[in-house]
């Protein structure tokens, strides 16, 4: 079961990005690439010979693997098709965020290792953005966990499914906060621009400038998986309908359809945001993240004060 979910997740991850890229192209009045394009890019990169700078140490070569494994682990612990996941009994939602941090730390260490100007520049920006985004993520998950009295994801999602979707203010605040965090963490507009060529404005891209070949493929793949992670997390927490509670083929098929629908909708939202917004100033991004943090705190408060039911 576990290897199956891991494989499914890893294989599906590039598709979400491909879907968003295609939508974005359509919103720019052009045809755009096929949704399978990220897959083709990965295949090409895996076939290439990697090049490593003289100044890099073993960390530079190890970082992509750590990043990949940590992201994949975090992702595979999410309820994707069924509520119960194989890893639910040994991790919880806080551990998952811990693994995302591990992945990010690996990325930043790898980017700082060769000692180039752009790697450092990107890392310093990422340091700021992630240090402000991570608490919001933790807090948002925290307030949802308080609702279910559990930070075990299977129990948490099961609880949300059982109680049904009530219009809770805390959910609304948390959803907004998590949406902003998801945008920032995935290097999307308005905090970062995935399509830019300009080294000086990049955040995420500036960090990966030195990697090539399979190393780069792993880093990019981790990026795809992170996007899918956030997509599924948001879907699980705010629209858990359709998740199978036991693993019968029919239920799984239905769950897969539902998940695809939810992710497609999320992709539309993402593509629309990217079509409509320019990138904000670097030092306005903290303002947005502070707002997200406040929203998360507000969500937590409104849960504690308004919706408390011991």
């Amino acid at each position, binding site marked *: 079961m576990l290897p199956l979910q891991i494989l499914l997740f890893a294989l599906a991850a590039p598709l979400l990005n491909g879907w968003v890229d295609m939508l974005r*192209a*359509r*919103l*720019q*009045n*052009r*045809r*755009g*690439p*096929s949704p399978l*394009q990220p897959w*083709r*890019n990965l*295949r*090409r990169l895996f*076939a*290439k*010979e*990697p*090049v490593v700078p003289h100044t890099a140490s073993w960390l530079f070569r190890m970082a992509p693997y750590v990043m990949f494994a940590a992201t994949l682990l975090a992702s595979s612990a999410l309820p994707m098709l069924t509520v119960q996941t194989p890893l639910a009994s040994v991790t919880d939602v806080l551990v998952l965020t811990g693994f995302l941090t591990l992945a990010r730390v690996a990325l930043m260490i790898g980017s700082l290792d060769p000692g180039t100007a752009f790697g450092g520049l990107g890392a310093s920006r990422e340091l700021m953005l992630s240090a402000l985004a991570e608490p919001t993520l933790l807090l948002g998950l925290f307030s949802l966990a308080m609702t279910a009295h559990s930070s075990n994801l299977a129990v948490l999602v099961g609880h949300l499914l059982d109680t049904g979707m009530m219009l809770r203010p805390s959910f609304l605040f948390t959803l907004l906060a998590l949406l902003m965090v998801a945008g920032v963490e995935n290097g999307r507009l308005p905090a970062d621009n995935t399509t*830019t*060529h*300009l*080294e000086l404005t*990049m955040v995420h*891209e500036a960090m990966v*400038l*030195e*990697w*090539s*070949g399979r190393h*780069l493929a792993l880093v990019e793949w981790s990026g795809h998986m992170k996007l899918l992670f956030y997509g599924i997390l948001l879907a699980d927490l705010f629209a858990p309908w359709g998740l199978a509670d036991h693993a019968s083929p029919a239920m799984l098929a239905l769950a897969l359809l539902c998940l695809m629908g939810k992710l497609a909708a999320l992709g539309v939202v993402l593509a629309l945001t990217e*079509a*409509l917004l320019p990138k904000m100033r670097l030092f306005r991004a903290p303002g947005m993240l502070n707002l997200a943090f406040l929203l998360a705190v507000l969500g937590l408060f409104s849960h504690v004060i308004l919706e408390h039911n011991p």
Partner: protein
Amino acid sequence: MIRILRTILSNTTCTDAPPQLDAHALEQAGIAVRRMLDAQCRASLAIRQVDAGSCNGCELEIGALENPYHDLERFGVRFVASPRHADALLVTGPVSRHMAEALLRTWDAMAEPRLVIAAGDCACNGGLFGTSYASLGGVDQVIPVDVFIPGCPPPPERLLLGILAAMGRHVRA
């Protein structure tokens, strides 16, 4: 925002039909292909562009490849920021002596398999600027060139044709 959306929706997708890719079309455009990338790159290619002394005309036309009419991205071709990520080096200009070293460094920084596309008359043979105290006259004076795209500057259609040929698309077509 509403206005932006309305503008987007009122304009339809205007991308041109993909070019006819056969030996005849290449010959007509004067594109010479010595070597192309292997199968992995047939549907995905990352390009690093280097201006080695052009007058900016080729850059303007290469930039035009990204506009909605030509939409290079639909073929899986992307311009990337780092030569480490690139499979093909798209070079313009007659290679001024001042840029030769940087061009060589860029070539060194790329991972195998790698390809060089010379775009424009200057890049192919020095063009108007020829060989002088300041210009080396053609990219193949510095690094091995695999695809030549002539023109001053080559129009985007021809550049597109050359890039697709470098990817080996015409072999399959």
